[in-house]
């Protein structure tokens, strides 16, 4: 198994972009383009709550940690978990400075409500895989906390999920190493994309620039 160099880690947050649209991911993570819209600002606002690395809570048999930096050498990814809940569990692993054994469960904060497609899902899968690697344990599930319904949803993580996660990370790395921005597959999802003005998806379906110029100057 090849271990990736820290310099070449991909960002976990990109997985969700990648599953939403490969071009959106490439524009953000390869071309470093970004444009705020209402949704991204709502997202930032929501994450302000989770992004408080100095707060550590103990509630009964739970230890709640916010903004936990994570990575996986095997997958070559790095990122931050909004919240990780460590739950006391006889099958868990010992934690530095804590008594007893614990199992970690990531909680990812999302704006809006549960979505039908699973573009968020694989990000949680990758978080689970990172935590497993860093803590040397097995994790069966994670959670999404949806801001709009103020509720968390439990997500079971299967072997097939992990396999799919690996595959899409490999595909991401493939584009990343070639610095390649794939062409857009325009569709209804473009309407909710914050980068629609930078991407201009229709541009690739237009007629050639040569014929545009030729026909104009021939007038």
């Amino acid at each position, binding site marked *: 198994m090849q271990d990736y160099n820290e310099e070449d880690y991909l960002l976990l947050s990109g997985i969700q972009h990648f599953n939403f649209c490969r071009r959106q991911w490439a524009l953000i993570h*390869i071309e470093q*383009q970004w*444009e705020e819209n209402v949704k991204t600002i709502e997202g930032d606002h929501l994450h302000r709550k989770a992004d408080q690395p100095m707060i550590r809570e103990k509630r009964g048999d739970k230890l709640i940690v916010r903004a936990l930096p994570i990575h996986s050498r095997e997958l070559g990814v790095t990122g931050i978990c909004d919240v990780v809940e460590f739950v006391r569990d006889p099958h868990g692993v010992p934690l530095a400075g804590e008594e007893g054994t614990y199992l970690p469960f990531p909680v990812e904060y999302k704006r809006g409500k549960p979505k039908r497609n699973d573009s968020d899902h694989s990000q949680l899968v990758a978080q689970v895989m990172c935590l497993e690697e860093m803590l040397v344990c097995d994790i069966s599930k994670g959670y999404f906390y949806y801001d709009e319904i103020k509720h968390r949803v439990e997500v079971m993580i299967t072997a097939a999920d992990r396999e799919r996660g690996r595959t899409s990370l490999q595909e991401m790395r493939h584009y990343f190493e070639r610095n390649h921005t794939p062409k857009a597959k325009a569709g209804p999802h473009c309407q909710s994309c914050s980068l629609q003005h930078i991407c201009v998806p229709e541009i*690739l379906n237009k007629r050639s*620039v040569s014929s*545009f110029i*030729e026909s104009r*100057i021939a007038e």
Partner: protein
Amino acid sequence: MKKILNTLFVTLPDTYLSLDGDNIVVKQEEAILARYPLHNLEAVCTFGYAGVSPGLMGACASRNIDLTFMTRTGRFLARVIGESRGNVVLRKEQYRISDDDKRSALVARNMIIGKIYNNKWILERATRDYPLRMDTDRMKKVTASLAGAMQQVREVEDLDILRGLEGAAAVQYNSVFDELILQQKKDFYFHGRNKRPPLDNVNALLSFAYTLLSNDMKSALEAVGLDAYVGFLHRDRPGRASLALDVMEELRGVYADRFVLTLINKKLIHGKGFYRKENGAVIMDDDTRKIVLKAWQERKQEKIIHPYLNEKMSWGLVPYSQALLLARHIRGDLDEYPPFLWK
């Protein structure tokens, strides 16, 4: 296309700009003159330096608000740019093209085609709209020669030949530019372009409009991740935004010249608003500059259909859309750079 927001022009010379929460505060000797929410702004442009707080600079940079310092007479001084955006791979390809004369010529010639095409249509429109005011035969001769120049430019693969053709076409266009001034001829006339300094009212207006346009062009190029200072037609010279000047070529006539003509022909400005220095240099007074800036901002809000994208957008987004198209061509998504061909 994205929305065009407001530009805040600060024309009072001794004002200080600072940040308060998410607002920009305009102060004069501790008195607060105005306060605007940053989220409504796309650019801030100050004439007559007093100062901007570092806090405000940071807030502008992080929100992608373009912050520019100009002299009182409208010459560019400096711009605050945040972390440079975009992909180094895109910039390196831009530099490779810039280092290669032939590849530079292939991009630059489309910009020149854009320039000649647009200038030709400015003249044709005027001849059609005011046949009684124009020397129609003379105009026809010029437009015919511009049409011929365009065909020639289309074949050029050498930068020097391209510059020659561009210069000749500019002489043709300038030779009839005075015909487009239909009002206030006593105060506004054009006998040729001069800029350092401008020696008549029209040249003073043109210089000012070109400065405003080049500002918009520079920020548009930086926003899509290109380096505004490395050009194809204009060669590198420290401090010169060569790429911005390149892309501007196709927009000068259709964006800036027509804007200046409207100010004069609609009598929005008057000869009294200009004064002549001892050496002949012409300077606008503060009131005239304010009128021009206000009109510029209004022009940016006017809607057009982009000729290549075929999308409705405001004039203010044209520099941005051309920067985007250029980046797309450099990246290899588009077979050529599509200039803005207005009609």
